[in-house]
């Protein structure tokens, strides 16, 4: 079962990295813990839902920021929503960008907002890639007859 051990080791290391680098936090652990026999795909479902919502919100923010007369309250409400859902899901980096984003909205700073929006996009892409890699490892472990190591 050498390959299984390797995969499990990879999984543990990769997970540790994601936490260390602040891509995910304790809320993500909670989401993982909520998965059980009655909802075996819970994590994947929540994550997919999050990225769907994130993309919609990002588009809305971009549109609002393109206007001649930017409605910062609108932008702020989108950011607020993204902050809430990224927080629930444990997408720590995205949540942190949202915190900075909110201050720029309050200051009605268009440049600052646009920079934050760019950062949100960047973090979004990175997190997607990372989580896809994580889920792939999980599938491979299960396919090799093993169980997914639990994070403490």
């Amino acid at each position: 079962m050498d390959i299984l051990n390797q995969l499990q080791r990879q999984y543990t290391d990769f997970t540790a990295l994601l936490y260390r680098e602040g891509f995910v936090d304790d809320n993500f652990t909670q989401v993982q813990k909520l998965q059980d026999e009655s909802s075996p795909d819970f994590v994947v479902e929540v994550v997919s839902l999050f990225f769907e919502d994130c993309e919609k919100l990002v588009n809305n923010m971009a549109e609002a920021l393109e206007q001649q007369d930017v409605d910062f309250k609108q932008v702020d409400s989108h950011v607020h929503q993204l902050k809430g859902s990224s927080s629930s899901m444990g997408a720590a980096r995205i949540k942190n960008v949202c915190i900075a984003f909110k201050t720029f909205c309050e200051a009605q700073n268009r440049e600052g907002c646009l920079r934050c929006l760019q950062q949100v996009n960047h973090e979004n892409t990175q997190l997607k890639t990372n989580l896809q890699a994580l889920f792939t490892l999980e599938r491979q472990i299960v396919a090799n007859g093993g169980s997914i190591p639990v994070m403490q």
Partner: protein
Amino acid sequence: MLGMWKSNAPDEFVCIKFDMEISEGSSLSDVASSTTNSSGRRQNSAEVKEGQSFSMCKRLVQMMQGNIWISLSPLGFAQGMTLVLRFQIHPSYGRAVFSPGTSSEQPNSNPQFRGLHVILADDDHVNRMVTKKLLEKLGCEVTAVSSGSECLSALSSAENSFILVVLDLQMPEMDGFEVATRIRKFRSRNWPLIVAVTASAEDNVWERCLRMGMNGVIRKPVLLQGMADELQRVLQRAREQF
């Protein structure tokens, strides 16, 4: 004597029959009294005069789709009273609220949450999904809605009997404060229990929530232990008050 049987009616009902004995000098004798005319003739049961309070009871019982009647001794005196009431069978969430809560290490093994009917109102997809799952993990039966108005219509629907409302304060069209105000105004001062969920770190949020008639507050992001602790506290207070 108490007898219980399932009627032929659809499965959702059960009939309970109470048989009571009226003994000499008992307080039930003034409920129904038989009349004797001066000649002491045996009276026919149709001429038993019913006390006013008894006919009131009879009226109430019949409105409840039950029945009540006096049984007579051979001499025409009231010797017993039978009461039949029909009850609709509901899931036993009521027991879950009032059974003694035992604190345990793991929140998800707490019996007092089992079967608890909860309505969750949160406009955000991800939050709704995670919080719903969290509450289900604790044993609750959750109905999730995405707005304040959906929450209010779910509460006013006769079939639904919710013990607890978990309410996101920052919803766009109707915020949690307004929902809570309406619930307290049009439903009841005490029921259902309302727990607010807020991202706000302001100190006076708690006060404001209490003034609106809410029973508890949880800070976002919601964690399992935090939810379990606050729900336990809220249920404990409710038990003490009722």
